[in-house]
């Protein structure tokens, strides 16, 4: 019989910490990716992932399902770890991180697709931190609005509103940029 996440948490909180391995297996990739998107640096992402899970293990007894999902709790630790650790040395600057990232081999080869993605990266980089976080948490990390709200300490409706307005803004800006590019090409 498969053990549920809730059972794993309950067992950990009852002192059977060896069950933490199951929780780790379920989240290590997600948490690492979450941190990588915000640092764009493999080594740093690994270090902070390690810190995140160490903290989660030590504080597992403080988790309460009444305060939100386990997933949101874990992402919250990851985000705080990012802020505490990473920000001390290098500011969490989406523009810098994405610019750095966009210059590497990650983009598609096809010129048009590449241009589009470059624009997307550029516009993402221009967003303020909160909007950027909400967009990436929903689109890249796949968190639900409820989880995003729990992680950021905001209401679910506020997160939804920010997401939709940002998409609206991006849609206009990307569309404008593409039209501009087409005009420039035609000229």
């Amino acid at each position, binding site marked *: 019989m498969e053990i549920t996440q809730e059972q794993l948490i309950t067992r950990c909180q009852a*002192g059977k*910490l*060896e069950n*933490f*391995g199951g929780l*780790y*297996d379920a989240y*290590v*990739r997600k948490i*690492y*990716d979450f941190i*990588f*998107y915000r640092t*764009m*640096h*493999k*080594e*740093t*992402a*690994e270090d902070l*992932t*390690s810190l995140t*899970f*160490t903290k989660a*293990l*030590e504080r597992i007894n403080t988790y309460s399902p009444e305060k939100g999902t386990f997933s949101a709790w874990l992402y919250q630790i990851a985000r705080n770890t990012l802020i505490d650790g990473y920000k001390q*040395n290098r500011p969490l600057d989406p523009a810098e991180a994405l610019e750095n*990232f966009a210059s590497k081999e*990650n983009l*598609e080869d096809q010129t048009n*697709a590449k241009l*589009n*993605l470059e624009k*997307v*990266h550029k516009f*993402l980089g221009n967003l303020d931190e909160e909007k950027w976080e909400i*967009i990436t948490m*929903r*689109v*890249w990390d796949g968190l639900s609005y409820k989880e995003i709200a729990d992680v950021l300490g905001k209401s679910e409706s506020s997160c*939804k*509103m920010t*997401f*939709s307005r940002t*998409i*609206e803004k*991006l*849609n206009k800006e*990307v*569309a404008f940029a593409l039209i501009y590019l087409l005009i420039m090409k035609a000229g």
Partner: protein
Amino acid sequence: MKNLNLQIEQLSKELFAYDKSFMEHEKEVKQLIGQLLQAKPDTKFDENFALMLRQQLMQKVENLKTEKTAGTNFNWRMALWPALAVVVLVVSGVALNQNKKTDTTVELLSGNIEIDRVDNNAFGKLALEPVAFGRGSGGGGGAETMSDSVTVTQTTVSGTAGNSALTTLTAPQATAEPAIGFSAGMGGGGSGTDAKMIAPYPSIRYVYKGDELILDQTEVNVYRRQKGLTSSAANQFLKQLRFGLLDMTKFNNVSIDSINLMENKEYGYNIMVNFRDGIISVNENWELWPSPTKECQTPECYDAARIKPNEVPADSELISIADGFLKDHGISTQNYGKPEVMDYWRRELAAATDMTQVFIPDIASVVYPLILDGKQVYDEGGSPSGLVVNVNIRAKKASGIQELAVQKYQASAYQGETNVDRILKLAETGDFRQIYYGMETGENTEVIELGTPTKSLLKIWQYKNGSSEELYVPALVFPVISAPKNPGNYGYYNKTNVIIPLAKEILDSNNNGGITPMMR
């Protein structure tokens, strides 16, 4: 693509539900969401990292349990309790104390991992031992140092022809690890390596092609394995021993140095417990292991018995045999990473023009790299270092284990190297000892690319006051990401990683290249 479309649909649907005006631009919105999803970076997730972190956390779990049990402050101390291996000497109650107990179990060597934090720079000055550089001693290739305290033969398993280490820092006991790495040496079966022969070989240039490095640790933890064991239980036992030929009680201050045990059955083992070094090794009780070469008197006989490439089991089978042996003998692999077969002969075979000249050893070594404080341990050649299980290829049975060691360490902070240029420059020599750096290169110099490094520990030996210390120094392991086009030109190129230590004193101690030529 299907998954991408599903995600686009899901996210669009949410938006449309939230604000119907988005539906007027459905195509553009879906296109934008698609682009956002495609812009998701490749995070370069490393499964090995995940595995190592899991092991670290499970060690932490054990630590937390112990902390609760002991009720002591373990902030500075990690006491980890995986049952790596426990040597239990079951002493008959008749021998120990006939009247009181029927049997008594005395634990002599514990497999628990313990790391005690000690003061900064507690191990004194860190320095590399000179590398031996001279004639090998035959067999599997060997090397000798000028050090008067140590004479080492780095023995490859079963006299493997080929790569003999120019020494991987002179381990005090023979080791089952196959000699590894180009920079670790290119000795040969029988005649060893002559320093004069080296110049034409290293026509290799390393170029770093990885991500930008950031080295911000001004202090790094260096670990020293605590080897000396005093087992009061064992020594108490000694006091009660009565041999017919002499009275043991008349000797003073007697301690157990080692025990050699023989398993007397077909395919039995010889178990050597070295209390001084805190290491157990298991080998074939060779008299009881059949071998077609046992009765050989002529070269033809040996040739006929040589193992052929198709007789060697796949790596997965070798690992399965090794795993089975460890499981059967109660040896936990919790402190170790993913096992790897040291099958360098396969590369030699692939590069050889005459396959009959490649010697395939009778023994295959499966290495379970030690994970210490969450980091994987490597040797100087950049190969994984840890518990070794040897598998007898003919018998398809585990024939022994090496480096099953007591896991008790001290950790001390030392100055870390933060100069990225220095580290990269060293990495691009291919060897932090710079043995070949600046040496004459041939016309056909090949460029080998190094990828983004991972944090690890480098196992080295240091000699002080006539005894050896086993140190684990933080290091970066740079993976070799492009192999030479003509590996056969380089004495069979075996290097998979370049390892560079991060403790500044270690690097500073190696300014002269650390080479001590051996003269006879």
